[in-house]
């Protein structure tokens, strides 16, 4: 194929990240602590840029527990798409602090993070191919 091969990541890293994100968003939803959400937005932004802090965190955990390297790698780009979607929800929530928009947006991000952590269902990743097909409308097959 003509395009460069995308980078691969250990799929357990993002899964761990989704677990931490679920916990953080649950705290934000219950307490309404928007500064914590602002921090989470920063983490989403790093993830969208391909620099998620949970990658190094997972590698540290892996080493500490003496776990094996990944059996298979996962495409990093859909994961970045997912983090970008998370960032959008976090920003919407931050703009909507003090209104019902806050709880709705945090709830949506929380459900997505939970599904990823508990079931391995990455909603943002599922959007990746859809977004590609709908932003490259004129390209030839």
């Amino acid at each position, binding site marked *: 194929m003509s395009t460069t091969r995308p980078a691969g990541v250990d799929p357990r890293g993002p899964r761990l990240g989704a677990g931490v994100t679920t916990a953080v968003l649950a705290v934000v939803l219950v307490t309404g602590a928007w500064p914590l959400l602002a921090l989470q937005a920063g983490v989403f932004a790093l993830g969208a840029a391909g620099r998620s802090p949970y990658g190094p965190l997972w590698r540290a955990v892996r080493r500490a527990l003496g776990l094996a390297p990944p059996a298979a790698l996962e*495409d990093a780009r859909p994961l970045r798409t997912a983090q970008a979607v998370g960032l959008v929800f976090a920003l919407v929530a931050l703009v909507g602090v003090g209104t019902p928009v806050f709880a709705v947006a945090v709830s949506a991000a929380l459900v997505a993070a939970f599904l990823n952590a508990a079931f391995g269902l990455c909603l943002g990743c599922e959007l990746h191919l859809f977004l590609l097909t709908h932003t490259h409308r004129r390209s030839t097959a």
Partner: protein
Amino acid sequence: MLLLAVLLAAATAAGLVWRARQGRVRQVQDDDAAQDLTAEVTALGAVLGERATLLQFSSAFCAPCRATRTLLAHVAGTEPGVVHVEVDAEQHLELVRRLDVRKTPTTLVLDGRGREVRRASGAPRRADVLAALPS
């Protein structure tokens, strides 16, 4: 707190439904409406299987895509007249959009005349693939 409990319960239910639906092989409308994909398969440089063609859309570093490839290649190797064709979805976005493929892996089961008769999104189970083959 109540909201959090309700959200997590609903998400758990949705997750269980999603997991149960993964890889399920669905019938494509009724047989009369089945889309003829002979030209598309030819354009991919492949030849239709006499009995069936398993047209798999994949993407790079996709673990279920790899599992699906192994399964379908094995089915094609053991079932007479069955061919496995794998397509990199990102290299064929126009086709992906036209066929309404929304995720990888998605497998289209084409009959001997190149018409799409079944479709599975997510990694299908072996028994379901075998059952979906035209007799």
